[in-house]
Structure formats: C-alpha cells, structure tokens
C-alpha cells in the first residue's frame, strides 16, 4: 500500500471539467513529479489532495485512510500532508521565524518547542540568518524557501510542492535541487509540480503527465520524455535533447 493513492479523481467547476479520472500513487520515500501545460489541472489536483476542494468523484487515500471528503485543509495538514503555493504567500507582518513557527504549532502547543522546531527547519533551508527579518522583505528565492520551511515545520509525511522553482534563476534552481533531495532523505515523500524540466529530470523518480485534466502518460523521466504524445502536447522537440 502506497503512502498516497489517488484513484479516479474528478472535479468539475460548474460545467467545466478541470480534472478527469486521474489516478496515481506516491510511495513512502518517493519523489513524484507532475508536469503538463498550463490549465492541465495540476494545481487543482493539489487543491483536491490538500482538502481545499472536495472532488466531484474519485478517492484520495493517505496512509490507508480515506481523506477524500474531509474538505478542511487544516485537518489534512494535521494528518501529514503539507503544501506550498505557486504564488508564495508569506505572512508579511510576521518575522521569518514567526512564519515557520505557525507551521511548527501544528505539532506542539508550546512556544519554546515550536521555536526550536522552527529554528531547526530554518537552518535546514539556510534561512536562519534571516530569522528576525519581516517575511515581507525577503527576496523571491528566500520566500520560496520560507514557503517550504513553513510547510516542513508541520512535520508532513508528504509534501506537495507547487512550482517551487518558478521565478528562480539557474543558480538558485541548482541550490534548491539538493535541498529537495535532503527533504526526501529525512523521510518526507514529495509530489511536485514543475515546469523547469531540468529540475524535474534531476529529482523525479516517476512523472505523471497531465493534459486537459487527464493523465496523458506516466512513467520514469526517460519514458515520459520519449513519449510522442507528451512531446506533442507539452515538451516540444528541444527539451528531449536538453
């Protein structure tokens, strides 16, 4: 039994079908990627898994528990799924440390303990030198790491990363890749949406390709990037040789 089992996930917004019959698994220590053109339904899948929406049909099973109908993001977080947002949302009035402590409080109600957890996570993500700074004053790369730190402080078993590389230059991307590997090594499975193919190829063990709400292909990075349908729908010829 996998950590996360998604079966037949379907979601409609009014008359529009955003996600249709999507199924895939994520194993305990796996890094699984989701790629696809814009509007393919990737973020909607994240919203469905993390409890922001309730799916029109299908099931989501996490650690053997059916979490499909929960519909409350805070409960899904408590069960062990963390997520970041595509457009980062720091708590601007609070310091970096305080931001991460909000996440840490998911696991403890003591101030000192939350602070300790937060500092540890900040250190892990190379943000400890910015602990006392208001979150609103960070650079975009730092904000991305803060977003991950916050989610990590909730001690998830599965981390959903939504385009964490977006907006980063190649140097910054190269810094984040080993961080994600380290997160996985610490026992957190990762499901990541990404457009930056270099990062995806380096990290993902398996990739799910979504197109117009449906699973177009699924497999190892090599299999997927050679799949003709994927090339036509999303990749284009150049990427294969990148």
């Amino acid at each position, binding site marked *: 039994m996998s950590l996360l089992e998604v079966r037949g996930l379907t979601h409609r917004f009014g008359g529009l079908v955003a996600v249709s019959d999507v199924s895939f698994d994520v194993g305990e220590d796996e890094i699984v990627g989701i790629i696809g053109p814009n509007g393919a339904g990737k973020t909607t899948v994240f919203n469905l898994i*993390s409890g*922001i929406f309730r799916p029109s049909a299908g099931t989501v099973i996490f650690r053997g528990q059916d979490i499909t109908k929960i519909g409350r993001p*805070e409960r899904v977080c408590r069960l062990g799924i963390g997520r970041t947002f595509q457009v980062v949302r720091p708590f601007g*009035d609070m310091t970096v440390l*305080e931001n991460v402590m*909000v996440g840490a409080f998911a696991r403890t109600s003591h101030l000192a303990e939350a602070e300790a957890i937060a500092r540890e996570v900040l250190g892990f993500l190379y943000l400890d030198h910015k*602990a006392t700074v208001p979150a609103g004053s960070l650079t975009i790369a730092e904000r991305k790491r803060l977003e991950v730190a*916050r989610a990590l*402080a*909730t001690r998830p078993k599965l981390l959903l990363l939504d385009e964490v590389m977006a907006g980063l230059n190649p140097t910054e991307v190269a810094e984040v890749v080993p961080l994600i590997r380290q997160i996985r090594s610490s026992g957190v499975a990762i499901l990541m949406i990404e457009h930056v193919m270099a990062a995806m190829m380096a990290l993902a063990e398996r990739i799910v390709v979504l197109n117009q709400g449906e699973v177009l292909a699924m497999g190892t990075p090599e299999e997927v990037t050679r799949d003709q349908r994927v090339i036509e729908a999303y990749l284009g010829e150049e990427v294969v040789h990148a």
Partner: protein
Amino acid sequence: MSRRLSPSAWAALAGAAVLLLLPLVVRSKFALHNLILVFLYASLAASWNILGGLAGQHSMGHAAYFGIGAYTSTLLFIRLGISPWIGFLAGVALVAVFALAVSYPAIRLRGPFFTLASIAIVEVLRRVAIHWRSLTEGSVGLTVPFKPGWQWMIWRGKEPYYYLTLLILIGVVALTYGIRRSRVGYYLRAMRADEDAAAVLGVSTTRYKLMALLISAVLTGMLGTIYAQYMYFIEPDSVFSLDLSIELVLLSVIGGLDSVMGPVLGAALVVPLNEFLRGVGSQQLQGLNFFIYGVVLIIVVILMPNGIIPTVRRWWERLNGSRLATAHTKGVAR
C-alpha cells in the same frame, strides 16, 4: 530567551506599579475620575483589539456587547435585586450566546462585509432598546440606585472604582500579552495575514476566529456592567452607541493595532483631553477635539499604517541595530 521580557513589557510593569500607588498621593476626584475613564476605555480598546488588531476582524459594532452587558446586569439589579457581581455573569453569558448566534455567522464574511454587518447589528439593537420600553424604559434609560456596598458594586468614593478598573485593565493587558505569546496568538496573526495559507498549515480558522470573537465580546460585555455601576445611568444612545464603537477603533488604530499597549496608549492620549473639554462645556470645543482625532486617524493611516507603537518600535530597533534583536527576543512576538 523566550522567558525574557521586552523593554516595553518592563515599561508597562513600571507604569502599572505607579498607577497602583497613585491614589495614595493623588486625591483629586476629577483626576481619579479621568483615570477611571481612561482605564475603562483602554480596557475596551484592548478587548476590541484582540479581535480587531490581533485577528484582523474589524468590528465597528462592539457596542452591541457593551450594551447587552450593561442592560442585563442593570435590569437584574433594578428589577430583581440581583447583585451586579452575579449580574455581570449573566450579562457575559448573554453576550456569548449573542456573539455565537449573530456575530459568528457575520464573521464568516470577510473584511468590510463583517464591518458593515457589525454596524447594522448595533443599530438594530439600539433601536430595539429604544422601542422596547416595557423592558428597557426606552430612551428614558435606566438609573442604577445608589446603594453603597461591596455586594452591590457601588461605592461612595472613587478609589474602589479606580482599583477595580485598573485591575481589569491590567488583566486585559496581561491576557493580550499571554495570547500573543501563545499558539492562539500566532494563529490569529497568521489568519489576519492570509487565511488560506494559514489553513494549509493546520490552523482551524473558524475555531480561532470564534475564540477571538468570544474573548473580545465577553470582555466588552463585562465592561458594560462596570460602566453601568460607575455612571449610575445607562440609555440606548450611550451604550448601544455606534460612536463608541468607532471610538474604540480610533483608539486602537492610532495607538497601534499589532501591539499590546497600543490601545492603552490611544486611550491615554484621547480620553483625558476629551473629558477635560467636556468639563469646559463647549460642544464646539468637543467637536474640535474629535475633528483633530479624525485628522490624526487619516494621517496615521497614510504615514504610520501600523499605528504609533509598532512604528516607534521599528524606529527604535533600527536605531539600535541587530544588537537589540539578538540580545532580547530574536524575532519572537512581544
């Protein structure tokens, strides 16, 4: 590091000590009366700020809870002879029920819609209080009989009222301080910044909004009873007062929404001057006073959106550099 108190906390403690000893030196009834009013307004503003500043839900209808508290304890006292010490508990219970039934659905609305709803709620209550003469005596108001005695929360001198209101203020400030340095405080501030982002971090937004609402409302209701027992007279226009609600917002915004002492500072700046002018008697001078406050509010929003205290704190920190931050609180909420 978390145990150490910040400079502003020490200042507050020192101030509290001075105030506790003050009646031994100051005998003037006028001065004590002014301070009692400052304490009352400061407590009201600080209670409002738990919901408005900390949780970011700007109610402009807090007078609803004030009025319910005042009328409940006063009616129980006048009609049934029940001591206000018990009556305020009934008032507080009624406020809690009201907040749950009416304000809580409204607070699910975001931002300005909640503000507008809160105004409408106060206005409805005021008119109902005016209309329901058999219960409230309408616009005539209710007079609290002068029956001195500890059991009736009525005293001849000003000193007992002084200590009662001061202790309540200290209690509310301590409570606010405690909330800010706890999980509840962090969650409220996160929700204020971004509810959805907070939710995916495990924050039950509805539960914490409700918590902030109930604490804020209940404290305000309790203060309604104190007000009634001090002023000996309540009427719909003065307790279910939209102006009072707005004044609480004014005090907190000027003093600083995201701070513990901000509302207290706001009250200390605004109330004494207002009382002095009211004593002088001119309506027009009072108008000038509040005109200035209105202008100050505008200027504060434009120049110091965080209010006086957080802005001053930031200037202070910038003057002292990182030395202060690492030595004392390391970025943790004060």
